[in-house]
């Protein structure tokens, strides 16, 4: 076959090039290539299977926490500056509103210019109320008030948008811990889902982000945004291997309906093509 006739070193370089271009990272790429070395068969096929095996974890990819009936389902969005948190909050609000759920948005980014206004426009678009205070208010206080309102009004879903922050800023990570704490104070099931919103165009910094955000607020998964560009988001493989966090959703555009559930197979095939 054409595969067995190709020089093994040349094939290895080809595999590595595709993985590197996809931001898999050199260490993860070399681990992947090594793991399929002993096996028989088409290298690309083996690679795809190994990547799928990593992304699907121990088969728990399909288990999603259901919308609980004992209080609102709270989703906390965290991540670095400009990764797509506010837009994703709007998309999630539209998604749940479209499913007939009652939804509330919390504008807990009280720092950045026009952050509250940006989320309020998303609220208008999806017909969802936005709980906010004035710019400069305490973010944890907004989070607390929003959950109180969601509980009092018997809302199905509360989505908490937070300010962008670099994971190396310990004072900002402390603020995030405080936001999570005040939610938990109202019930230890809150928040049911905490997502790291990760920009697909970033490279190896994703690993540092996943580690440090997970350490601070115990993440449940990742939302990989901007996959409508040419970046492949391959860093999520290393994140899965080292921090054991699965990708739950992907962002594929700037509109309300540009949010999709993560499909490992489609992701891997797009990366390897």
């Amino acid at each position: 076959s054409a595969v067995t006739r190709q020089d093994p070193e040349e094939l290895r370089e080809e595999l590595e090039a595709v993985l590197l271009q996809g931001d898999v990272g050199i260490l993860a790429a070399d681990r992947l290539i090594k793991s399929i070395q002993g096996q028989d068969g088409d290298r690309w096929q083996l690679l795809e299977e190994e990547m799928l095996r990593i992304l699907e974890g121990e088969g728990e990819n399909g288990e999603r926490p259901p919308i609980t009936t004992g209080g609102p389902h709270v989703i906390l969005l965290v991540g670095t500056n400009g990764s797509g948190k506010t837009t994703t909050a709007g998309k999630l609000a539209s998604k749940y509103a479209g499913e007939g759920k009652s939804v509330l948005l919390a504008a807990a980014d009280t720092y950045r210019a026009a952050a509250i206004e940006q989320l309020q426009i998303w609220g208008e678009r999806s017909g969802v109320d936005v709980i906010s205070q004035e710019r400069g208010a305490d973010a944890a206080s907004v989070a607390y008030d929003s959950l109180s309102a969601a509980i009092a009004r018997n809302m199905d879903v509360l989505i908490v948008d937070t300010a962008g922050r670099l994971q190396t800023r310990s004072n900002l990570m402390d603020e995030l811990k405080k936001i999570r704490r005040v939610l938990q104070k109202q019930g230890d099931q809150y928040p049911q889902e905490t997502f790291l919103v990760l920009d697909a165009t970033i490279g190896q910094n994703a690993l540092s982000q996943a580690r440090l955000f997970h350490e601070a607020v115990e993440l449940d998964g990742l939302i990989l945004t901007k996959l409508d560009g040419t970046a492949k988001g391959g860093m999520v493989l290393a994140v899965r291997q080292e921090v054991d966090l699965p990708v739950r959703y992907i962002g594929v555009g700037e509109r309300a309906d540009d949010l999709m559930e993560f499909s490992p197979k489609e992701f891997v095939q797009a990366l390897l093509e």
Partner: protein
Amino acid sequence: EISRKLDSAFQKLRGKGKLNEKDVTAGLREIRLALLEADVHYKVVKEFLSAVKERAVGNEVLKSITPGQQIVKIVHEELVKLLGGQSAPLRLASQPPTVVLLAGLQGSGKTTFAAKLAARYKKRGKRPHLVAADIYRPAAADQLEQLAETIGCTITRGEEGESPESITERAIRKARGDLKDLVIVDTAGRLHVDDDLMGEIERISAVAEPHETLLVVDGMTGQDAVNVATAFQERIGLDGFVLTKMDGDARGGAALSIRHVTGTPVKFVGVGEGIEALEEFHPDRMATRLLG
């Protein structure tokens, strides 16, 4: 850190006598790893290392008692050279106002940088004017307007349904009339593969006739940096780029990749969310950061 890693690797090799070319190649493998982990594009790493190899197999390394340190020193020097040697300033127009056009992917830091640049020049006694030409992002004009208010700078924002080209043209006309020194055009984030929006930025550029076109790039950008920079350079031309969010622990390899494929320099580095968080680019500091 890397020179210590290399020296210990070479210590083991020296045990068997004189260092040779094969040993140096092994040392360069460590450098390759460091640069790839720093997000430098893999093709750029390959080209850079083949250029470095010539020096690395010379006597300055082979005869040195600390060959690892020598290799790192050579790599560092070559990185600084490739990154442009020294800081490249903003080129001001002979006839004011200087028009600066900002472009880049979504969320890279354009709006924040527009304000930072305006603040910097205001501090130097210049009269800047901001243009909110992003008509898509919710509250984009509000964001730039609030920043303008914070720094005490004038701003043009669009009217209902006005195109970015019209906003830009109107703003420059007004700035000229008001004897402004600098017009900074903030545009919407866009994908280099979005044909409509790339056509739009071409039209904005045609209208603005900018003296400086800067690509604003997130410092954490991975391999995609090459695709993005090449596309923008082809469509609107680039005079330089800005590397943002470098106050984090991202190594910033995109800087080397973009410099290598476009030939344009890093003009500014964003180092925080505050208006003051703007620095000139220092190639030597960048080289150290890249090597980790």
